[in-house]
């Protein structure tokens, strides 16, 4: 008890001392007192975060060596594809605030693009990857250009309709294999120079084992996440936030809402295209059933659960929701029931998700509460100073 009191007293004294010191010394050491500590603090936090990230990456890289269970690696690979998709959807829904309920369609377009290119033209995976991205983006423009002028929930319905149209189209067309889908899609292969017996090129075929895909997916996820992190902090990212929060205000500040919304839509669709290509090459078989509305909703719930707009949150959300069903195999039939329930509960009790950004939280609250939150934020900043 006494100890606590002393501590409190110490803290109080120290704080007083700091305040007094700051008041007197500010003119003299303004640089030292006001900026250095916070700057140092931030740098330390950055360093800690970086070390954490590097450790996490190392752990992910060595995982297949430690855990040789193919099934586990396969689950992780699938989770990685979901992470990719959720990150892409996050650009559309989280950054730009456009509710896309037909996101699975772009995934399907990417997968079918690679599958058709591979089966009919013999295109290898590495050529298919950019082509799938471009074709996803093209369809994004095709759908986005006319529809992005619509208000949010209408856009949701149109994208939903688009998702159904795409699925039914793949289901009914002859050359896409109808309901049976496409079979025998080539797995990726790596060609690299080898000096084992003189200089020649060697081919490493990915085959059916999971770990090569694991690294492939890990690599792509890292690249995508890095690009998106940079985007989030860029001029473009801020413009998206502005549009999301108030389109009219954003437009008066010189932001072109339609163009930037289209850009978000296209980036999201391109990422889905890439994910589709990886998915098709991994599975070797695709059917229209894999790209139904439930997938779109699953992806949306990953983004919402993790925290709209937060890259870290979305990754966590995607991993949780893609691994959870594997853990709950016994309760598989309750899975969607629980999904539905959790979506309702999250929206009511924690609309910002697991790792929601404060800004997003403010947006999801009624205006009086918004003001309170803004005040809290200002106070927080003052306290930090």
């Amino acid at each position: 008890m006494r100890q606590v009191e002393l501590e409190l007293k110490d803290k109080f004294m120290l704080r007083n001392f700091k305040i007094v010191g700051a008041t007197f010394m500010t003119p003299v050491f303004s640089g030292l007192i006001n900026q250095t500590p916070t700057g140092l603090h931030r740098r330390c936090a950055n360093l800690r975060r970086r070390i954490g990230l590097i450790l996490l990456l190392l752990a992910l890289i060595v995982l297949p060596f430690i855990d040789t269970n193919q099934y586990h690696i396969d689950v992780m690979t699938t989770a990685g594809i979901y992470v990719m998709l959720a990150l892409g959807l996050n650009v559309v829904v989280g950054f730009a605030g456009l509710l896309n309920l037909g996101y699975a369609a772009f995934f399907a377009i990417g997968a079918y693009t690679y599958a058709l290119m591979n089966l009919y033209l013999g295109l290898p995976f590495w050529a298919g990857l950019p082509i799938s991205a471009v074709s996803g983006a093209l369809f994004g423009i095709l759908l986005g250009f006319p529809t992005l002028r619509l208000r949010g929930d209408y856009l949701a319905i149109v994208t939903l309709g688009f998702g159904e149209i795409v699925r039914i189209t793949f289901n009914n067309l002859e050359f896409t294999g109808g309901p049976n889908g496409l079979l025998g899609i080539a797995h990726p292969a790596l060609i690299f120079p080898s000096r084992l017996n003189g200089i020649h090129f060697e081919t490493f075929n990915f085959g059916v084992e999971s770990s090569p895909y694991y690294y492939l997916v890990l690599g792509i996820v890292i690249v995508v996440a890095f690009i998106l992190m940079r985007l989030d902090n860029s001029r473009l990212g801020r413009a998206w936030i502005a549009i999301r929060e108030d389109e009219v205000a954003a437009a008066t500040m010189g932001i072109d809402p339609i163009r930037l919304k289209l850009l978000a839509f296209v980036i999201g669709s391109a990422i889905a295209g890439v994910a589709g290509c990886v998915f098709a090459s991994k599975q070797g078989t695709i059917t229209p059933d894999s790209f139904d509305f439930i997938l779109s909703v699953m992806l949306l719930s990953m983004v919402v659960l993790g925290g709209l707009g937060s890259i870290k949150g979305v990754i966590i959300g995607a991993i949780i929701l893609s691994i959870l069903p594997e853990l709950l195999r016994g309760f598989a039939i309750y899975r969607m029931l629980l999904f539905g329930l959790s979506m309702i509960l999250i929206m009511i009790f924690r609309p910002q998700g697991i790792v929601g950004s404060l800004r997003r939280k403010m947006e999801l609250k009624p205006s009086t509460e918004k003001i309170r939150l803004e005040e809290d934020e200002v106070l927080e900043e003052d306290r930090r100073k």
Partner: protein
Amino acid sequence: MLWHDILIQQLINGLTLGMVYALMALGYTMVYGIINLINFAHGEIFMVGAYLAWGLFVSFASRAQGIGLLFLILAGFIIGMAGCGILGVAIERVAYRPLRNAPRLAPLITAIGLSFFLQNAIMLVYGASDKSFPSIFPHYSFTIGRTSVTGLQILIWAISIVLMLILHYFIKLSKLGKALRATSQDLKTASLMGIDVNRIISLCFLLGSTLAAAGGVMFGMYYNTINFHDGYIVGLKAFTAAVLGGIGNVPGAMFGGVVIGLVEGLGAGYISSQWKNVFAFIILVLILLFKPTGLFGEAGRVRTKG
């Protein structure tokens, strides 16, 4: 059969389906008109209504005869409509009301969550297989020229038209209907005029859900089968109908439903039944592109603020 016989036959089939869509579209349009929410769970309410009636029909169909069958059908409608009315009001209370002031994305997501929840709850209770309706309505059919109309189709038309007329006059003539219209025009002002807005919103869900349930019972009787995910696709088409008629516009929703039904009937008959689910979506996309206010909608409701 000559070409116009086929055409008339398809029109008759399409009209029957259109009546069901119209009943559903009314629920979408009323709810959207007041709280600007696409009630995604509306399709599931339709499906729950069909399941409730199915349960009743299956348990009593073998015991009822003659006039008893008519009473059974009546009871099926009443149970389905009452159950769904309660369900609709409960849904609004639990999932939408807490988010009344939140941005529109939040309630839309709870609506999707609800839709999943209801689908899977029904699947867990009744099983995933198709449930076949016992054919309790006597199979009359009237032949005019070379086209035929079944008694069931006439029953569906009659019930739909009666329900729509009741709704129309309720909204137009009753005091509550007047309050509903006022709330739909301006929620805040209506509440300042002493209208209990929460009660009106509940009323809206009650009316919409009972109509959807009636549609569900008829849908089940017409196709003789019902499945837990039927509500989703029917709901989408009904929403398309509501948008076509101009969202928030009650007569527009009725008209839109009939048009969607006819288009689907004709499309399935003349082009291909495989693509029948696509027609409604293509219409939806086209309307939203070229006339987003719908055929009878008010201007300025659909476009973004920008």
